[in-house]
């Protein structure tokens, strides 16, 4: 290592982000801004039925419309895909079954959108309606008709894990608290609708531009479904106008336009409308939870027992991972010596749920933080002190083998307690006004990729030339979170230049090394390490050449202020451009690469693939509310939030992420819900989203945004680049329970479900006994025997005692069971058509298509 120690010049300085100019001047080119000569437009026909078999599709009248170039149906792209290897259950267009209102059935490509729309209206689809499943209770009670051919009836997945003898610990606890909570589903509501353009290059290769967070996974899905070599496909992730997890799956419309462009040889574009974005969904799972916690008299936790029931919607999506995530991080915030987690995801005839900011963890966090508040009240402890006293131990393994690094939570709590005047105000404010506290933790990148591989999770390539130009290439995707800025930031820091000096080529599978995508708060940490490695390698090469020229040992050279100079004699040096020239002269064309793969997890049990991360971020939040008891109206007046970010690479961006999280969290806390309407059964089989529009799906406006005081707590973690941890998701998590806890302080009620509407506040105020509004009980679920994994302090080694031989390679994908019993090749695949499925289900049916 030739690097001379130097103060950080870029890292930690508040800066304008590198893409700010383009964004504020309206010059950023989003997917829908792309126009090409001879471009055609695509529209999708979506199912009006929540659950039906397709008997016949008649597209003749649509094809007869002047200006229509192509009509596609499911049979044109019969190979299934899905983000997780265990859930390859989606088709570009439905084959013989539609599973929710909005499931796409056919596509029309025409000279313009209005022509395509007119043609859509002429497609005749003959449906045979099937019984619908509206919620998890119905799914548990109704195994048939099955929404998906895999899983158990309409149960998609059940998981059960136990770390130490929880029942014994509960029996020895001084107090046991048991509560049931409900967290309503909500959606991402990115301002930019999903859009994509596909075109065939002059040499016959395919390019897809798409507003996706995960170009790499879209790339794989396209290769699979279109049956063309991945190397002949280029996916370019255009800057996303917000993602939040909603653009992390490969989507129908992306595959459809790619197919259409290949058939027609012309560029084909699609831009979804807002209703269609609601149908793409993949948002927060509605989760019912039963949380049982045993504590000692001082409030310290001796054991926790959590059950979760998820409403998954009609497809798998990330659901298996989401299910595990409702349990995986419960041990990361506070010390939990023994822990049992059982989770169940069901299929319902609604748009699929998936990952939204915080993926699977806001729901159990809501439950635990409210229950801690109840524990504090029952034991007459200060809620802030109770939390402070049992923060998880830094640099330790948790009961479920998550490896923790630095934990800045104690300081986070101190900051918000001090800032909000907690000690003099909690419990002492006038009736109607109150403050509440909650904490949380989140991962900095999933430790395992979506599909099994031993390859890097992120790669960065640098190319430098004699002009002094540095170009950084990376597959990472700018979704508004500042991914590009992080890349420029770190390369500039290492090479001693300005972030604006660097040219960035990102989100392009042809030009940059693979980065898995903008999800799971992984980019800063993983791409960051890859960028630093690539930049340090470039630095080595240049330093070697400059050292020879200046006759200064490489270790004495400083890269800074766009120069390379002698630390002992700063006047002796060369400009950065000259340094690159001597480097190029010595080594030939200059280019380096860097890459990163997370350390191996300590969790060796099945299911242990979800939750491990190189580092964990922490947050604490105090919310002040003003409640009007006559109407139940809740105004959030102020929020204090402290986030342990390890190190803020660019504090301006970091604060933006924190404030954005507060905004999104308050929407979830107070108003947002994916609510569905089933019409009277004797009149209709309809099961529709109540209001798939930005007007009636209520999300806060700027007028609802309270004053926010943000504290960035920097406790650098050796696992992060310059010690940095995530900030994109974690700060969302404590806000919802802090609002609920503030209501208790204000008017003495518990609202144990989200969103906290005025009506629920009134209901809780009217409940003279429990002063509560929330679910009454948790349904009885026939759980499997849990995998028993002794915690580290009980002699465990991370493996389950009662686990059979592993069916897959060690440490596989995020979804821990690649080979799920009963998951035969999908009947629509050529493979599946050859061998009938394990249960002997009928051969796949293709509806008749009349052309």
């Amino acid at each position, binding site marked *: 290592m030739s690097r001379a120690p130097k103060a950080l010049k870029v890292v930690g300085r508040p800066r304008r982000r590198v893409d700010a100019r383009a964004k504020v001047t309206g010059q950023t080119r989003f997917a829908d801004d792309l126009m090409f000569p001879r471009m055609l437009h695509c529209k999708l026909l979506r199912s009006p039925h929540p659950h039906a078999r397709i008997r016949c599709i008649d597209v003749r009248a649509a094809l007869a419309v002047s200006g229509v170039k192509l009509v596609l149906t499911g049979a044109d792209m019969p190979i299934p895909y899905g983000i997780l290897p265990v859930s390859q259950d989606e088709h570009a267009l439905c084959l013989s079954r539609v599973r929710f209102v909005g499931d796409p059935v056919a596509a029309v490509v025409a000279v313009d959108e209005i022509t395509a729309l007119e043609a859509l209206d002429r497609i005749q689809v003959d449906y045979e309606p099937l019984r619908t499943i509206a919620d998890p209770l119905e799914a548990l009670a109704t195994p048939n008709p099955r929404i998906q051919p895999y899983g158990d009836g309409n149960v998609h997945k059940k998981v059960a894990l136990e770390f130490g003898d929880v029942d014994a610990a509960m029996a020895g606890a001084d107090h046991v608290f048991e509560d049931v909570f409900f967290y309503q589903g909500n959606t991402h509501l990115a301002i930019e609708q999903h859009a994509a353009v596909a075109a065939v290059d002059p040499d016959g290769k395919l390019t897809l531009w798409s507003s996706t967070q995960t170009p790499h996974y879209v790339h794989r899905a396209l290769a699979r479904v279109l049956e063309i070599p991945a190397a002949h496909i280029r996916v370019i992730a255009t800057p996303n106008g917000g993602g939040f997890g909603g653009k992390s799956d490969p989507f129908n419309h992306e595959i459809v336009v790619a197919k259409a462009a290949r058939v027609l040889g012309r560029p084909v574009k699609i831009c979804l409308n807002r209703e269609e974005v609601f149908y793409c969904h993949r948002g927060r799972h509605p989760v019912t939870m039963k949380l049982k916690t045993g504590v000692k008299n001082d409030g310290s936790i001796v054991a926790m027992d959590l059950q979760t029931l998820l409403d998954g919607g009609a497809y798998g999506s990330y659901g298996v991972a989401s299910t595990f995530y409702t349990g995986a991080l419960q041990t990361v915030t506070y010390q939990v010596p023994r822990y049992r987690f059982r989770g169940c995801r069901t299929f319902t005839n609604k748009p699929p749920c998936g990952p939204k900011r915080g993926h699977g963890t806001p729901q159990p966090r809501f439950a635990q933080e409210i229950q801690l508040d109840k524990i504090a009240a029952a034991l007459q402890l200060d809620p802030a002190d109770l939390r402070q006293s049992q923060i998880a131990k830094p640099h330790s393994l948790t009961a479920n083998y998550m490896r923790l690094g630095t934990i800045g939570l104690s300081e986070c709590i101190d900051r918000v307690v001090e800032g909000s005047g907690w000690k003099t105000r909690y419990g002492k404010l006038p009736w109607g006004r109150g403050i509440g506290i909650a904490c949380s933790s989140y991962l900095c990148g999933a430790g395992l990729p979506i599909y099994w591989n031993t390859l890097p999770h992120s790669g960065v390539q640098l190319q430098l030339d004699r002009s002094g130009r540095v170009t950084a290439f990376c597959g990472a995707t700018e979704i508004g979170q500042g991914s590009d800025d992080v890349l420029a930031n770190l390369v500039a820091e290492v090479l001693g230049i300005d972030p604006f000096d660097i040219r960035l080529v990102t989100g392009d599978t042809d030009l940059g090394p693979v980065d898995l995508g903008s999800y799971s708060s992984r980019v800063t940490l993983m791409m960051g390490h890859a960028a630093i490695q690539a930049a340090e390698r470039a630095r080595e090469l240049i330093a070697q050449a400059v050292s020879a020229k200046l006759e200064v040992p490489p270790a004495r050279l400083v890269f800074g202020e766009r120069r390379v100079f002698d630390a002992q004699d700063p006047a002796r040096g060369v400009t950065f451009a000259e340094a690159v020239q001597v480097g190029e002269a010595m080594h030939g064309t200059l280019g380096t690469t860097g890459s990163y793969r997370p350390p191996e997890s300590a969790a060796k049990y099945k299911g242990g693939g979800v939750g491990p991360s190189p580092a964990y971020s922490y947050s604490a939040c105090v919310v002040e509310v003003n409640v009007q008891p006559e109407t139940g109206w809740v105004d959030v007046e102020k929020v204090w939030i402290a986030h342990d970010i390890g190190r803020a690479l660019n504090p301006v961006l970091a604060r933006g992420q924190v404030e954005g999280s507060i905004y999104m969290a308050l929407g979830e806390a107070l108003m947002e819900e994916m609510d569905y309407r089933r019409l009277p059964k004797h009149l209709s089989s309809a099961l529709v989203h109540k*209001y798939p529009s930005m007007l009636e799906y209520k999300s806060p406006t700027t007028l609802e945004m309270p004053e926010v005081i943000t504290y960035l707590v920097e406790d650098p973690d050796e696992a992060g680049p310059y010690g940095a941890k995530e900030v994109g998701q974690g700060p969302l998590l404590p806000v919802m329970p802090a609002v609920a806890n503030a209501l208790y302080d204000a008017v003495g009620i518990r609202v144990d479900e989200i969103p906290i509407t*005025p009506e629920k506040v009134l209901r809780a105020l009217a409940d003279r006994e429990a002063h509560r509004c929330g679910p009454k009980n948790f349904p009885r679920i026939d759980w499997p025997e849990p995998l028993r994994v002794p915690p580290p302090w009980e002699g465990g080694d991370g493996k389950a005692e009662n686990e059979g031989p592993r069916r897959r390679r060690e440490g596989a994908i995020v979804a821990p069971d690649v080979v799920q019993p009963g998951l035969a090749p999908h009947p629509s695949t050529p493979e599946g058509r050859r061998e009938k499925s394990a249960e002997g289900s009928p051969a796949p049916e293709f509806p008749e298509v009349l052309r």
Partner: protein
Amino acid sequence: MMRCHRFHYESPRTLREACARLSDAGGEAMLLAGGTDLVPNMKRRQQVPPTVISLRRVRELRDADVSDGMVRIGAMTTLASLTTDPLLRERHPALFKAAAQVATPHLRNMGTLGGNLCLDTRCNYYDQNYEWRKAIDFCMKKDGEVCWVAPGSPRCWAVSSTDTAPALMALGAQVELAGIHGERRLGLSELFRDDGIEYLSKKREEILTRVLLPVPVPGEVSTYWKLRRRGAFDFPVLSVAAWIRRDGQGIVEAARLVLGSVASRPLLSPASSRLVGSPLSEEIIQAVAEEASSLAKPLDNTDFSLGWRKKSARHLIQGALRELRGDDPRSLGPIARRAAELVPVF
């Protein structure tokens, strides 16, 4: 994005020409003012007029003047310009507050007073795109048979969601309608019908041309309270417009209390008369709020649950009357506080 259907577009320059074009179209055409209601409705295929007649170039409809003790406001006056008129704010605060709380600044820049009065009635089963409505087999307001809010009902229960109509009704306004056969004048309550589909008594061949408001005499005060989820953007789920005239001793001489968004038209409360003859005491306010709120029979077709909307009616009416009594609106809870903080956008 969603696209409008194909239609003929006409943009006459005079009122006479507009009336003639409208008549020629034989009831098939629709009038375009600011377009903030009609255009999205066309995109959702709730309204598919073969001809759209724009009033944007008809200058007469933008005139405003005061004569014979009446303020005349042209129907094409934008909502934004109403909120920047200091005289209006002083004389007719109910209308000012109503206009200032419609939608968002962008929509108020386009939306007009006449358009807001003629706003299509709204319903969660109706204000959806074509595909959604197809999924529920449509409703009687457009393309279907059933009213899904009340499936046994022979009528449509879509909700009058205009902010300005309750305010103007409370203020005793009138409107003028023009057609090829001449003009007529209606009291505002006569403009509306209690039906979600045929919610206006204005004929299809008529154009709403202006609004007439009596110039207030001393002792008159008015206000408008709007209940909605957010401080911007949302249509009312319940609204209260109140107007009173007091004598020198503070005795109420005349009063009008109007509820909006609880039926297919704004409702003038019979309880208004109970305000007359005594000062606005807390006792009277409570009694009137109790009686007037019984008029609110919301159905489950807007934001919020109907039970909560009904419960909130009394609170909203009380608040509006207390404000008229002289209470500081900022002390009257979050809804009033927000409205009191309204700042005109100049």
